[in-house]
């Protein structure tokens, strides 16, 4: 299978290790990874902040970049949610019938990483080794937009050496919400502090999620408090192997 990596601008710029881990993991599983280098940003921040007309050129650009891909995979639930859930609406807003059709052709081929592995490839054991106490935060977009269900947890349960502990109140939002964290900083912080308390209650040394944006939010709070909990993307855990372990 040829998998075109939709890295997302966020990971590309801030968390390149997540992209490197995704590439290594998929190649280890026998997939051919491609990286269309002209990709930029999916426009999620624009669309969600209300700049929906400004998103249309970005939708058009994305469709051009990924048009010929066999499958498109991204290590980000919220960016995949943007493409699958909101691109059809943005295309409709453009009034361009050709774009609407192009988006329709594209969206069924776009997968979040755990969806591709579990639902499309039928894998739950990817041969990973990660000897740490980990708790998993299912992000809002993975749960309620993509409906990935327990796919990420099934992958984590398949990891050798992992001590996976349940996160209390896991399904509740961490308070990030993109520009919400800026526009409603006080409310965002109130939500974040409850989420951090739940994370700390687990005694985990690593907090895992399928979205670096939520991880950056929770991790930014944990780091400021010197809480001693690392935030690690699902792809990084799944890419880790016994031979690489220190």
């Amino acid at each position, binding site marked *: 299978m040829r998998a075109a990596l939709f*890295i997302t*601008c966020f*990971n*590309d*710029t*801030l*968390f*390149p290790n*997540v*992209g*490197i881990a995704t*590439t290594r993991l998929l190649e280890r599983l026998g997939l051919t990874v491609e*990286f269309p*280098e002209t990709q*930029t*940003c999916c426009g999620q921040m*624009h*669309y*969600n*902040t*209300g*700049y*929906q*007309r*400004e*998103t249309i*050129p*970005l939708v058009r*650009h994305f469709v051009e970049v990924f048009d010929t891909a066999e499958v498109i995979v991204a290590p980000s639930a919220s960016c995949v949610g943007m493409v699958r859930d909101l691109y059809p609406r943005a295309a409709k807003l453009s009034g361009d019938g050709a774009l609407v059709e192009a988006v329709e052709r594209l969206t069924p081929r776009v997968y979040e990483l755990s969806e591709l592995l579990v639902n499309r490839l039928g894998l739950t054991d990817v041969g990973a080794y990660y000897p740490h106490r980990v708790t998993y935060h299912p992000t*809002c*977009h993975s749960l*309620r*937009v993509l409906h990935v269900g327990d796919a990420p947890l099934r992958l984590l349960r398949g990891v050798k050496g992992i001590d996976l502990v349940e996160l209390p109140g896991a*399904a*509740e*939002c961490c*308070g990030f*919400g*993109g*520009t*919400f*964290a*800026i*526009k*409603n*900083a*006080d*409310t*965002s*912080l*109130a*939500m*974040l502090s409850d989420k951090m308390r739940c994370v700390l209650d687990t005694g985990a040394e690593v907090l895992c999620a399928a979205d670096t944006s939520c991880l*950056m*939010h929770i*991790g*930014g*709070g944990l*780091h*400021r408090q010197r809480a001693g909990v690392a935030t690690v993307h699902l792809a990084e855990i799944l890419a880790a192997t016994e031979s690489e372990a220190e």
Partner: protein
Amino acid sequence: MMASKALPLFPEAAKTALSNTQLRRNLSKATTTIRAKRAAVVGELPDWEDLRTAGSAIKARVMRHLDEYLLQLESAVERAGGQVHWARDAAEANRVIIAIIQAANADRVVKVKSLTTDEIRLNGALARAGIRAIETDLAELIIQLAGETSSHILVPAIHKNRSEIRDLFRRTIARGEELSDDPSQLAAAARAYLREQFLSAQVAVSGANFAIAETGTTCVVESEGNGRMCLSLPHTLLTVMGIEKILPTFRDLAVFLQLLPRSSTGERMNPYTSLWTGVTPGDGPQAFHLVLLDNGRTNVLADEVGRQTLHCIRCSACLNTCPVYARTGGHAYGSVYPGPIGAILTPQLLGVKQAKTLPYASTLCGACYEVCPVKINIPEVLLHLRGEVTQQTPPLNPEALAMRELARIFVSPERYERAQRLARRGQRFFMHGGVIDHLPGIFSGWTTTRDLTPVPKQSFRDWWRARQKGRQS
């Protein structure tokens, strides 16, 4: 329209609410309890999703043919001996209601809990006309005695705990009697006060949960039985109802009487379901007036995306499940309709200019949509309204300028990569100990409490290119 004045800004109102630790405690406890109750009774029904689909479909049909159903309702109510009044807005509704009460020679009315009468600020209008309104729902009574406004659709006094209520009753209705904070003692004090009101009132005012177009039957569901007292004892009954509350046939009630109590109070069935059709000689009120209120609803109906907001049955499941509401409480929303449903309904009723921060009072986490018994896609409507807000924002607004510039950068791979390099160079001004710990202006909201990951030396695309190059050589 509810009011022409702009509402207070949500982020500022929320900030005040968030600093009230007692409020935070009360809200967290109440919403956690009711969420669990709802989840348990919804989980019992194997056909819950089918019920939601049916509820949504019935409401969509009502909206499609609202004009016909309204006329059908009017003639059915009049056939059954009731009178129907049409009110374009709050002022018109209040005028109609006051005229009816004055014609009945009453200077006092008992009220069934009703959001619609709160929306039109009926109690204030009555007071100005010399008519005293007595709220009979226990929680409504509490906030009326406290001189406050509701902070929850279903549990208006959710922000108060029992010791706060004890203190309030001591000051008001307990007449010097000793009172503990035991809920049964508090209820007894309210009961003694309300009984007198029920037995002496000549006119009652209610809202309606549903009205059946086919039969002209009106329906109120409640938990306390105080509503039933109002609906059955006084001579004259006045019901104020938003035009969207119609159901086509009596059969449709079967769907909603399952959806509503499980979603709102977490009960299989609500304790009191009152249904009445016009007037029945010798039994119950002998005069019945139904006031059908528009107050901005036809504008909502005209909006293809926003229209689904009118499906709402005011169950409040979205409030209880919302992580924002659970922390800020209802007053921060500045409207009779708080929480996620308020964040989409209020801007549509008032116009987005009047409530431009409400569509942003959500992380778009989707929890509200998941629990909505009539499947209102609240995140979709929030986004739609955010789109309207930005369309009305002056083009030289700093956020709009920044967003347009970013869109221009993102659409070009060259400009995008240049921006990446620029961010890497520029960030050193804000870095301390390997992280970005202070940012200026609006971004300071992030760094007052969170560190920010710096842009690393190598982007993913740099790594990819280096690897491709290494493979080729």
